[in-house]
Structures are given as structure tokens and as C-alpha cells.
């Protein structure tokens, strides 16, 4: 009896700690306390579960603990920050697989005595769990470049996917009414696994932030469904928190790209379009590091606009040196962060924080946009589509309506870029052709290094 009380009390405290944990995460000052709260809650919940009377053997649990730690810990400790999106996608896959497998075991353990309600939530758990498992593995593959990150689309794709999903759900509904037909269960599981793969195939690399958030939401919901099936309120609470978090992030990501959910899932956006016409050679003004450094030297305020290209070139630490040297000269330096900069929500902030750039210098889009007209220099490093003014006025542009950083309003615009290749959306950026834009051609890391060298040199001379 005491064990049961302990379990119940530990679950209630754990649920409260989980909510507090997310509450404390709202600000960088208290965020680490949030992690502690979550850890304590988790430890309590595990302890509360281990003392339950239903557990007759600890052997396999221990094996699972050891193996799980052996997999999870090295990834968390050594994974480079550029690969956090991949780790996140993998962890969604793990979480969803766990939910799917628990649902499967529950079904086969109680096949004959399942109530309609339990069978319904078990089906939901298994469908969501398995589709999120393979979907997240596909997202991982695309992020890691194991699978081509361009969207693979074919005619009738949506019809095939939707009918496949409909068959899976239909079979599940039949199973709910006839839980004893256990030969149908593998059909539901298999179709869900297949659907997860097919769902992600047509989605392009540029949409990964949205997809990862959406899969996060599904993983949470499958955990909540497990809570319904096992009649465990703690699971329901944790799953609901995870589900709503993923949902909010997906909405933010969609809004940042001016797209709808259905457009992300079924649109096949991000494929390289062959834009006919309008390919006339417009001239750009390119400049050397010396010229650019001269302008930066005279500037009193600089806004740096980092994109994922900066991370690909591993230029964060050079950028930090540039930040240091400009700040030391009394220049006001800020970083303008677009919500979809990077490959998952908030990714760019982590990359810059890792390079030791103070977080109060990282400014969100809404806050920084009114400041561009007062900025002497806007320095774009590895960002493209999020700076394209066509999104504001060109109704024919595929990115029309997407909120952008108003880089073109700064007095001087500098763009560090390897060449004139278009961005993810495959469209030309008219920012590059304005009179005040200087194109700085070269590798981001090398070029920023040269800027730093120029600025240091002149600093010594003065």
C-alpha cells in the first residue's frame, strides 16, 4: 500500500516539476534551474515506477537503462551544435518508437479483454508512434544528407499518401470494434511505418524546421495516448506539454515562412524551380575585404545577419572575433535573427551562443527591423531568402508575403557569399543588385577572417 502511495505522490510532484521546468525555461537567467526541476521530476517518477508491485524482475529494465544511457549520453555530450537538429529528429524517433512498442505490447497482452476506449487510444498511440518514428528517421536522414534533401515529388503523390493513411485508420477503426482480430494489427503498424516515410519524402530541406516541430508535436501526442491507454495521468500531462510545445513551434515556423501546414506537408516547396525569363545579367558591385573593412571602420552601428550558410562554413568563431573588434572600437553590433535561421527553431541562437556571443546581442526579427534604417552597415553572412525584398512587394515571387529582415533599409549592405547561386527557394535575390549593396565573394570563414585582419591592422597603425 505504501508503495502505491509513493508512486502516486511521486507522479503528482513530477507533473508539477515538469510544468515549473518549462516555466523557468522562459528566461535564460532561470533556464538551467528548469533543467534541474525536470531532472528531479524524472528521477522521482522513475523511482515511483520501480517500486510498483507489477514489476517482478529488474533484469531487463537494468539492461535498458545501461544501453539507453550508452546511446543517449555520448550523443548529448559530443554532438556538435550544428548537428542538434539531427539529434532532435533522432530523439523524436526514439520517443515515438517507445510509444509504438509499448502500445503493441499492451495490445498483444490484453487482446481479448480490451475495452473499446482502450483499443481506440492504443490504435492512436500505435499509429502516431510508428508514423512519427519513420518520419523522424527520414527527417534525420535529410538533415544528415543521407537522403536527398530536395523534395521527391511525383504525380498523384498526395492521393497515394492519403489513401494509404485512410486504409491504416480504417483498419484501426475495424480493430477497435473487433479487438480480437489480431491478424490486422500488423497491418495498422506496417502502414503507419510506411506512411511516416512517404509523408516526409516530398518535403524539402528548407522546411525542416517546421517538420521537426510538427514531429515533436506528434511524438508528444503519442506519449499522451500512451497515458490514456495505461491510465497514467503523468504521461498524459508530459505528452500534452510536449505536444503543445511542438504545435506552437510549428505555428511560429509556418508563420515565419508565410505558409500553412497543408502547404508544408503537401506543397513540395523548396524544389529548385526553373524560372523562365528574367535571367538578364544584372550587374552587381563586388568589393574586397580592404574596402569593406574601411566602411566597417567608419560605421557606428552594424547589424550582422547570420544564416545557416555561416554555420556550414564554420564561420561562427571568426564572426565572434569580428564582433569583438568592432565592439572594442565602440561600434554598436547586433545580430538579427530570423525565426527560420538555422535548421530548427532557435538554432541560430545556439550556434552564436556557442561562439560566445552574448545573448542580449541576438535580436529577433520584429525588434530589429525598425532599427535597420539607422544602421550604417548590414552584414549578411550566409543568409539569402530571408533578406530578399521581393517578399515585400513582388506578388509573383514564390516567397511573397514571407516576413523578412529589412536589410535593404540599412545605409550600406554587405553580403558575404560564395557565388551568385540562388537560395533554398531557388529564387534570385534582388537585394544583391541595389546600389548600396557590396558583394563580398568568398568563403564566409575566410572572408570574415580577412575583415578581422584588416581591422586589426588599422587598429595597430592608429
Amino acid at each position, binding site marked *: 500500500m505504501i508503495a502505491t502511495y509513493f508512486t502516486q505522490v511521486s507522479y503528482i510532484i513530477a507533473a508539477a516539476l515538469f510544468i515549473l521546468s518549462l516555466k523557468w525555461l522562459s528566461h535564460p537567467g532561470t533556464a538551467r534551474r528548469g533543467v534541474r526541476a525536470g531532472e528531479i521530476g524524472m528521477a522521482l517518477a522513475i523511482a515511483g515506477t*520501480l517500486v510498483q508491485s507489477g514489476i517482478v524482475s529488474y533484469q531487463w529494465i537494468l539492461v535498458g537503462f545501461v544501453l539507453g*544511457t550508452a546511446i543517449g549520453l555520448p550523443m548529448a555530450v559530443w554532438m556538435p551544435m550544428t548537428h542538434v537538429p539531427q539529434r532532435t529528429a533522432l530523439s523524436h524517433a526514439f520517443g515515438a518508437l517507445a510509444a509504438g*512498442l509499448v502500445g503493441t505490447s499492451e495490445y498483444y497482452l490484453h487482446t481479448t479483454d480490451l475495452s473499446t476506449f482502450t483499443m481506440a487510444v492504443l490504435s492512436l498511440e500505435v499509429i502516431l508512434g510508428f508514423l512519427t518514428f519513420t518520419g523522424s528517421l527520414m527527417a534525420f536522414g535529410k538533415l544528415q544528407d543521407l537522403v536527398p534533401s530536395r523534395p521527391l515529388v511525383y504525380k498523384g503523390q498526395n492521393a497515394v499518401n492519403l489513401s494509404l493513411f485512410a486504409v491504416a485508420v480504417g483498419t484501426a477503426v475495424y480493430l477497435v470494434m473487433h479487438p480480437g482480430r489480431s491478424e490486422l494489427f500488423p497491418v495498422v503498424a506496417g502502414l503507419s511505418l510506411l506512411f511516416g516515410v512517404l509523408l516526409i519524402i516530398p518535403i524539402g530541406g528548407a522546411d525542416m524546421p517546421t517538420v521537426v516541430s510538427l514531429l515533436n508535436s506528434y511524438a508528444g501526442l503519442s506519449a499522451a495516448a500512451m497515458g490514456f491507454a495505461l491510465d497514467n495521468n503523468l504521461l498524459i500531462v508530459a505528452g500534452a506539454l510536449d505536444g503543445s510545445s511542438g504545435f506552437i513551434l510549428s505555428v511560429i515556423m509556418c508563420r515565419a515562412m508565410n505558409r500553412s501546414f497543408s502547404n508544408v506537408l503537401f506543397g513540395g516547396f523548396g524544389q529548385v524551380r526553373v524560372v523562365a525569363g528574367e535571367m538578364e545579367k544584372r550587374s552587381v558591385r563586388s568589393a574586397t575585404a580592404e574596402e569593406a573593412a574601411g566602411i566597417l571602420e567608419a560605421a557606428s552601428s552594424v547589424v550582422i545577419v547570420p544564416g545557416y550558410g555561416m554555420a556550414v562554413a564554420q564561420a561562427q568563431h571568426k564572426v565572434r572575433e569580428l564582433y569583438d573588434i568592432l565592439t572594442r572600437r565602440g561600434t554598436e553590433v547586433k545580430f538579427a*535573427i530570423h525565426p527560420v535561421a538555422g535548421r530548427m527553431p532557435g538554432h541560430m541562437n545556439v550556434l552564436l551562443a556557442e561562439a560566445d556571443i552574448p545573448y542580449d546581442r541576438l535580436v529577433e526579427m520584429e525588434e530589429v527591423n525598425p532599427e535597420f534604417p539607422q544602421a550604417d552597415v548590414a552584414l549578411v553572412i550566409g543568409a539569402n531568402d530571408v533578406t530578399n525584398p521581393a517578399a515585400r512587394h513582388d506578388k509573383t515571387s514564390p516567397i511573397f508575403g514571407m516576413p523578412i529582415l529589412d536589410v535593404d533599409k540599412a545605409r550600406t549592405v554587405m553580403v558575404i557569399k560564395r557565388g551568385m547561386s540562388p537560395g533554398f527557394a531557388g529564387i534570385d535575390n534582388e537585394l544583391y543588385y541595389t546600389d548600396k549593396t557590396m558583394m563580398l565573394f568568398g568563403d564566409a570563414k575566410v572572408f570574415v577572417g580577412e575583415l578581422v585582419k584588416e581591422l586589426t591592422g588599422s587598429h595597430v597603425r592608429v
Partner: protein
Amino acid sequence: MPSSLESALFVFVLATFVGFEVIRRVSPLLHTPLMSLTNAISAISLVGSIAIAGAEKSHLSTVLGTIAVVCSMANVIGGFVITDRMLKMFKKREPDR
């Protein structure tokens, strides 16, 4: 079990609302740590996995339960550790600058 369904739905709806309110306040600065933290928290499915793996009711359920424990445990450990690792990097400007 209608009473159980009702109370479970009750908990789900309330938790979803609490989740929306709390998570809306999280600064976009911390959205990546947010995702890894919620991920660690939802790895509480470990609780369900432990119950299946430890009950030893059938070979199938023990095997599936053990795999589920491995997956959830990887998320629990990995999720909390990487969240903390990321948050450690977020620093304010040193006062002398």
C-alpha cells in the same frame, strides 16, 4: 470505464492549456533548448516502458518493453544533458565591456 476516460480527458485538456500558456512565454532565443527539454520530459514514456519490461508477462512484451526502455532512457539522459549543455553557453555581456 467512462469515469477513467473523463478524468483522463480532463487532465489532458488542462495540461494542454497550461502547456500553451507556459510555452508561449518562452523566448525565441531558447526555442532549441525548449524542444530538447520537452523531448526529455516526454521521455517519461519510460514509465510505461518500465512497467512492460519488468512485468515479464510474455516474451514479446518483455522484448518490446526492453527496446522501449532503451529508447526512452536515451531520450531522458540525452535530452537533459544536451539542454543543459546548450543553456550553459548562453551568457550575458561581461559588465566591463
